[in-house]
């Protein structure tokens, strides 16, 4: 069959078909089919440039699916790769003796039984689009005429691919713009839905679930010190990374952390920021609502200060969403007045606010109570600042200061200590304007139930209390003064304004009635503890 006879009509038809091709894949397929017909070879394929590689664009007569799926050649490697790099035709008349081949393709092509190839570049002007192959399953001496024919097919193909590419690129740009617009609309709708969801959701914790559902990935809400308030959502396959960490302004240090396995583009980032902005509004709104409810019934702080928290995680989440920081380093104080005028909550609030912004004040058991957020200052400094504020106010109040809290369960202990210290101080049993349970020696007693205190006091001091009550004796004050003066009889006598011998007689009587020996340190310790419990019990009962 002569090339001259076949090529003109076939070439014209090939051109018509090329012009009719709607996309590059169709054009490549037409070219591969045409190569097989025109060069009378069983196999042909076209490789397209993709980055540094040639990938299979279309094929004709390939027997194995593997060849179609796996053929991929680095530009510069093998014979086809050299054609792409050098942009000129190359041929192999007998593959079995060709050293230019690369291992993977050698195997693929040997499996196909291919033994001779002719390869030309697909070029448009100076740019390389791919390479075109013609192949035989036996050694074959390619002629110059065949090289020319293949080059011509490749040239026509190149022109059409370029045309399609220009059209295609225009189409792609339009499609991308449309896609962006669609995505923007979708994200706007998502934001609107999120806002609606927030509006009907007053559960502060559920709001985070809504946010996570919209954003995908995992979303965490953390306090300023890093403590996790709550997390929602799951991670997809991939390597996790923080894509956004935003501290919500005016929300007590609350921070939203968004974790995903993919880096967001600019548009996505804007969407994430918008959702976080909406979430902040929700925190402020729900916080305000909760604070109002708290002012009305004080249920949350009642739980905190009495140690009845329910689920601590749930509690922490609610408190955090109110914008209140109860992290490690918080403490409780109770204010009272020695002249028995009650201290009002509002008065305490105005005293504390300038020094301890974020302090929460409330009323409890007839006293003004405050919870101070973590200050980051040492306890001694906090105490000095309180004393300072009291001195400047000239109000003559007394403040009982509780322990520094490490976690939520410490708040009730801190409150008990503050209250006990305050009650003892307003009864004149402690000096100074700010007192702690520690310095009053009642640490560990302040949280004991009243009945427990009373029983212990009766167990140790019962007979003495009975005597004083029945006969009007002063054994208890004598015992207290004796121990306070470290068993020194003259000092004790002077403090009680009685004679030295009176004290000695009373102490002997006390030892007899209680069955104790004042020289025994264990006995003295028991008596000392019971005396402090007695004072505490009396102060708390009268409060």
């Amino acid at each position, binding site marked *: 069959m002569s090339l001259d006879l076949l090529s003109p009509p076939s070439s014209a038809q090939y051109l018509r078909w090329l012009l009719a091709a709607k996309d590059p894949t169709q054009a490549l397929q037409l070219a591969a089919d045409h190569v097989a017909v025109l060069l009378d070879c069983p196999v042909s394929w076209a490789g397209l440039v993709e980055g540094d590689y040639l990938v299979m664009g279309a094929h004709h007569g390939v027997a194995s699916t593997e060849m179609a*799926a796996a*053929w991929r050649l680095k530009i510069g490697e093998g014979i086809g790769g050299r054609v792409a790099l050098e942009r000129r035709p190359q041929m192999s008349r007998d593959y079995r003796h060709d050293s230019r081949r690369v*291992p993977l393709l050698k195997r693929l092509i040997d499996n196909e039984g291919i033994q001779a190839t002719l390869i030309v570049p697909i070029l448009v002007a100076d740019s390389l689009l791919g390479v075109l192959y013609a192949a035989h399953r036996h050694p074959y001496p390619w002629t110059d005429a065949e090289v020319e024919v293949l080059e011509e097919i490749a040239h026509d193909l190149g022109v059409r691919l370029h045309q399609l590419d220009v059209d295609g690129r225009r189409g792609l740009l339009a499609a991308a713009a449309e896609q962006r617009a669609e995505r923007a609309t979708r994200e706007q709708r998502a934001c609107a839905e999120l806002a609606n969801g927030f509006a009907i959701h007053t559960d502060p914790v559920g709001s985070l679930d809504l946010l996570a559902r919209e954003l995908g990935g995992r979303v965490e809400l953390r306090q300023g010190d*890093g403590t*996790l308030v709550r997390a929602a959502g799951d991670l997809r396959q991939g390597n*996790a*990374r*923080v894509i956004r960490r935003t501290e919500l302004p005016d929300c007590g240090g609350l921070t939203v952390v968004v974790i995903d396995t993919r880096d967001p583009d600019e548009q996505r980032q804007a969407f994430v920021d918008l959702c976080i902005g909406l979430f902040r509004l929700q925190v402020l709104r729900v916080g305000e609502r909760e604070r109002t409810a708290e002012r009305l019934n004080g249920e949350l702080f009642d739980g905190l200060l009495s140690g009845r928290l329910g689920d601590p995680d749930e509690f922490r989440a609610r408190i955090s969403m109110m914008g209140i920081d109860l992290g490690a380093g918080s403490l409780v104080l109770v204010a009272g007045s020695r002249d028995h005028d009650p201290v009002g909550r509002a008065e305490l609030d105005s005293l504390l606010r300038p020094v301890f912004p974020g302090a929460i004040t409330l009323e409890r058991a007839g006293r003004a109570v405050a919870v101070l957020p973590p200050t980051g200052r040492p306890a001694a400094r906090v105490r000095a600042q309180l004393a300072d504020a009291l001195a400047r106010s000239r109000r003559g109040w007394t403040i009982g200061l509780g322990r520094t809290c490490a976690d939520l369960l410490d708040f009730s202990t801190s409150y008990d200590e503050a209250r006990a210290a305050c009650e003892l101080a307003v009864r004149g049993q402690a000096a100074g304007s700010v007192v702690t349970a520690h310095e009053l020696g009642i640490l560990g007693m302040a949280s004991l139930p009243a009945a427990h205190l009373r029983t212990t006091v009766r167990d140790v001091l019962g007979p003495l209390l009975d005597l004083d009550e029945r006969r009007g004796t002063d054994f208890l004050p004598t015992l207290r003064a004796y121990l306070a003066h470290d068993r020194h009889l003259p000092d004790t006598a002077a403090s009680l304004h009685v004679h030295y011998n009176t004290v000695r007689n009373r102490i002997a009587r006390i030892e007899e009635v209680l069955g104790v020996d004042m020289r025994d340190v264990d006995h003295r310790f028991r008596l000392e503890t019971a005396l402090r419990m007695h004072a505490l019990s009396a102060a708390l009962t009268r409060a």
Partner: protein
Amino acid sequence: MEGTVTLRLITFTTTDAETHVGALAGDTAISLTRASEGDPRFASMLDLVRAGEQGLEEARELCDSHPAYAVHGLDDVTLRAPLPNPPRLRDCSLFIAHLQPAFRGMARSIAVDAADPEAEYERLVATGKFDTPEVFSREVIYYNADHTAVSGPGELIVAPAETRQLDYELEFAAVLGRTARDVAEADAADVVFGYTIFNDWSCRDLQSVVMESQLGPSRGKDFDGSNTLGPCIVTPDELGSPYDLEMTARVNGEVWSHGSTSTMHHSFEKAIAHFSRNRTVHAGDVLGTGTVMSGSPVEIGKRLKDGDEVELEVQGIGILRNRVQLPY
């Protein structure tokens, strides 16, 4: 083109939970496991390491010419520790300048609980127990880290419940490519298969207690996932000299530690020569450098918080990123 192809080797899993050993190429991961059609030398990184120079040579060829289906988008896979099961993991003191501030930092954190922290710190320092022993500059000191507790990039590092002070340590590491004995220092460079980043997570409070035993950091540094390696192993021809690389640690994007590998006191070559003297070192063994100066929060008076993201970056290797979950 021969010999110019350099490798950034990875281990990754695909959505179908298959594990592959592969190489990074731009924003794709080439699976050598698939490209080689199940060749046992490419079943895992350790197999590849053990396959020696010829294995690497074939890996290079596969990177050049591989089937289309062996290529995965990086977004579609999860990178794992490149060598998840080293036969041995030694953490060495190749940097020694950081030791003094690290020891002093530990003394300071012990002293914090005392009534007078400053006086207690002075007392602890005066005992001499918080000085760097001279042996660290004389020879290459190491301890055996827990080679079963290896984690990879992106993994959540969960600190043990009893610790109150978890630290990162900014290090990098050499992976040995050959099983050998009595390697001369001059030949030791040929034994290195590649380099990766190493985060030697440490519970300082637990560490200072057990170190009193003088038997190493033991449970202070051993817990699930306590040794993070990754994100890839870079072959020596790709990396160039390992002794002039910038090292940076960031916490939540803020630079906490910054140093250079040029401050290493001992070289990997010296360590290999030292460890192989009358003893066998194995292909796949990992040698950590120890921490670069300022490369750990304890040295610079900082503390990690729950949920912090730690990024270790070593120039030419990449970024190793993890988040921490702390019980405090």
